[in-house]
């Protein structure tokens, strides 16, 4: 059914319905008698009228045009597309978790509060921080929350000059964006030839206007920042704080901890490291962890244990306030909690070891065929720089699109920005040797095709539900909703 192409609106037929509600069993009052006509809508919304079978077939057919981790290998660098365990979905779907209202009395949600409190403790132990807030809804939201905490810290000390955040040029795009949204100016520093922080360049920008440094470790090149202790000392001596972007935490669980490296504020991505599904773009969860002296700035409420019961503590005068309604993406937290329990401490360490093993294995086998700008042991991911031999001028995009024909999700491409034609590969630990081998073989085959049959790459993909899409046309014509609606009105 890959050729299915109907929009739900095109299936609509007057008189059909897909819902059932009981008859209204209270004494009928007419709507006009309870709500004045002036407050009622004049135009009815145009929502399709279809049967239940229509709904089910439509969305099932749409799902068939998607590719998920359950479909196949997803070596998307920086995204940690590991397997999403099924049992975790069942756990989040338990009635006692799924159907609880966020404003219920605390005594009726002790299980939920306990889970959040325990997860805070587990994530603190894994990251080496003292407390973790589960409120941020995504990685970028965690960054923003962490930066607000850094700003609140300086302001609480009357240190109001610190309005700048240092961000390396290898950083995730959200880092500078989050800093800007938190009201900081961004100071970008160039990485050294290995993609690491250039200590000289760092020193040159450190002064009493610097609020902090944002860093990913391992870096976006998949390399461990060896000088991290020195970097931390330099930033701290200058009065700044260190922010850890946890996007790459899958490389170091049980091996090294951002808290021990000198980071003051961190976020983790439950939808990466802790196996919760990406949902086609969300929901994620980006818990923020802090060191002891910053705990008072965490968003409210903080969950505390009082005797045998758990409470939501709002009485925190120095808190940055709230960054989201209620307590964060609780349903996602349940899955991450179940994951950590499934893995255990040693299991998590093995996750990182195997994630690193898998990345190094692919790297060792592909470096003959693709340019490897920095040839050293990588962590959970590595970055290639296009084809090693490329007389036919094949773009990295073409390689990615050709992979689609072979049934693989392509790696992240053109990121990090400091590597030209970047191909960023992160296999994760959940992939077997056989899966890696077949992916590698296909990558080698594509390198061969690039020499012998370049046209097939330039016009790829050929076997997907749709082929290359005219993005310029989308941006030009800006059809952002079904235009049949417009016609209908006329």
């Amino acid at each position, binding site marked *: 059914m890959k050729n299915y192409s109907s929009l739900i609106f095109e299936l609509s037929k007057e008189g059909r319905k897909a*819902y059932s509600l009981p008859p209204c069993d209270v004494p009928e009052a007419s709507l006009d008698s309870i709500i004045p006509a002036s407050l009622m809508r004049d135009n009815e919304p145009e929502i399709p009228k279809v049967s239940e079978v229509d709904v089910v077939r439509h969305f099932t057919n749409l799902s068939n045009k998607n590719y998920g981790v359950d479909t196949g290998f997803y070596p998307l660098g920086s995204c940690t597309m590991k397997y999403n365990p099924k049992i975790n979905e069942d756990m989040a779907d338990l009635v006692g978790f799924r159907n609880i209202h966020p404003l219920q009395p605390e005594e009726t949600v002790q299980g939920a509060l*306990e889970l959040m409190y325990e997860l805070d403790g587990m994530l603190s132990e894994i990251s080496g921080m003292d407390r973790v807030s589960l409120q941020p*809804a995504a990685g970028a939201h965690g960054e923003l929350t962490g930066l607000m905490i850094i700003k609140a810290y300086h302001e609480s000390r009357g240190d109001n000059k610190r309005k700048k955040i240092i961000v390396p040029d290898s950083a995730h*795009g959200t880092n500078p964006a989050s800093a800007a949204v938190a009201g900081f100016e961004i100071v970008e520093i160039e990485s050294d030839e290995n993609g690491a922080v250039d200590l000289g360049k760092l020193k040159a920008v450190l002064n009493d206007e610097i609020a902090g440094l944002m860093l990913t470790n391992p870096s976006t090149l998949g390399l461990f920042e060896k000088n991290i202790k020195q970097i931390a000392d330099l930033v701290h001596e200058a009065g700044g704080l260190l922010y850890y972007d946890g996007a790459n935490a899958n490389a170091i669980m049980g091996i090294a901890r951002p808290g021990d490296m000198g980071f003051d504020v961190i976020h983790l991505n439950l939808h990466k490291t802790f196996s919760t599904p990406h949902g086609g773009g969300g929901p994620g969860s980006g818990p923020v962890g802090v060191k002891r002296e910053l705990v008072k700035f965490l968003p409210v409420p903080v969950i505390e244990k009082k005797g045998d019961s758990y409470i939501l503590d709002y009485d925190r005068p120095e808190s940055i306030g709230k960054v989201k309604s209620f307590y964060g993406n609780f349903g996602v937290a349940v899955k991450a909690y179940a994951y950590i*329990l499934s893995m255990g401490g*040693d299991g998590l360490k093995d996750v990182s070891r195997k994630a690193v093993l898998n990345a190094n294995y692919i790297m060792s086998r592909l470096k003959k065929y693709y340019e490897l700008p920095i040839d050293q042991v990588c962590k959970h991911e590595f970055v290639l720089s296009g084809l090693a031999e490329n007389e036919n001028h094949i773009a990295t995009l073409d390689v990615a699109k050709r992979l689609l024909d072979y049934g693989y999700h392509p790696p992240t491409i053109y990121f990090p920005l400091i590597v030209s034609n970047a191909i960023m590969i992160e296999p994760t630990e959940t992939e077997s040797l056989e899966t890696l081998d077949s992916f590698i073989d296909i990558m080698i085959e594509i390198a061969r095709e690039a020499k012998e049959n370049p046209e097939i790459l330039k016009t790829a993909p050929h076997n997907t539900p749709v082929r290359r899409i005219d993005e310029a046309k989308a941006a030009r014509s800006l059809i952002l909703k079904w235009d049949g609606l417009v016609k209908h009105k006329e």
Partner: protein
Amino acid sequence: MHKYVPHTEDDERLMLESIGAKSTEDLFTDIPEELRLGRKLNLNNPLSEIELSEHMKSMSKKNKSTEDLICFLGAGAYDHYIPSVVKHLTMRSEFYTAYTPYQPEISQGTLQAIFEYQTMICSLTGMDVTNASMYDGATACVEAAMMAVENARRSSIIVSKTVHPEVRAVLKSYMRFRDVEVIEADMADGTTDVEKLKSLVEAGTAGVIVQNPNFFGIIEDLTEIEKMVHENKALLIDYVDPISLGILKSPGESGADIVAGEGQPLGNSLSFGGPYLGFLATTSKLMRKMPGRIVGQSEDVDGKRAFVLTLQAREQHIRRYKATSNICSNQGLNALAAAIYMTTMGKKGLKEVAEQSAKKAHYAMKLLTSSGKFKLLFNKPFFKEFALVGETPSGKVNSELLKHNILGGFELEKKYPELKNCLLICVTEKRTKAQIDKLAQVMEVV
């Protein structure tokens, strides 16, 4: 060996040979010794699926769910009916295990579903464009406020005190760090005090945020506010309950410039406050100021209709140092649930949900106020929530209700200290006459 990590010892050995390393430990020599943890993580031993399941079940049973309790609690999260198909279809693993649709050729399912979601949200709100969703209603409202600030190059936002307290709290934390002033406009008898609002709006006002139905469930008449806001060249931001839009005047019809709201009631579980989705919609004029992902229609090289993320040249992709929003994800699966919900309910179903909620809420109000023990706090047109005032502390009323397995209303004093002994009661289409009668019975004798 764990069931999620498939490496056999042989596999590991073969892989190490190819890498040229002796052991997996050798792959970590770049981490300085003094930074190594040097001990085991202080966590549990791994649990088998049976053990995990038992543990989680016993934990979940420490909570009382809306299946144990009859829910009359709303205040921003609502116990509406969720058709069975929503769960079955969102749990198609091609949907939920997919990443953001950056490779559109193999993401048409996600992209088309969002396009359909966008279409229905626009239709429901009466606005020109919407994005693929935000974290939740509160953060969507913050983004709306930032759009107004950017648009007008003014640095003050006025928000009515009848807007949800959580939304105002989130707005304040965000704006504190951006040097945008947030001014709260007083209320009079449960609605925005229009005269006071008029005195606040001035040349520096970028936008005015109102909620409809407001936090107390009251339907505000925006006619005068809209006129005044636009005369001052500020933007009107309307925070709405999508369920109400089955029958109530749409923000588009009210002249709103930006609409934000909590999409949870559209087919998403209560889930202790998240994950939900925020929706954000606006006029064509403000389209380019709108943050977040947007799906557009295009075609592929064969001329086949196809969908793709568009308008990407905004925000953190390009303007990362001057970004006014850092959002780079959406609540994809929740937006999918909303799309499936709206499709399943259809135009008639959405209207019926709204009508039944309103009728049942009005029945409950009449019954609860019939003896005079509780009075309607504000005598104004409302939708599915209403505030009651009595002689008994609302905490006490709620404890008594809980003994009868009823989840009572929101205790307004928690967020409005002046509103003592006041409860905000919510009635959705799921409540039956018998349940409402039971609520009245228990409350009558507290």
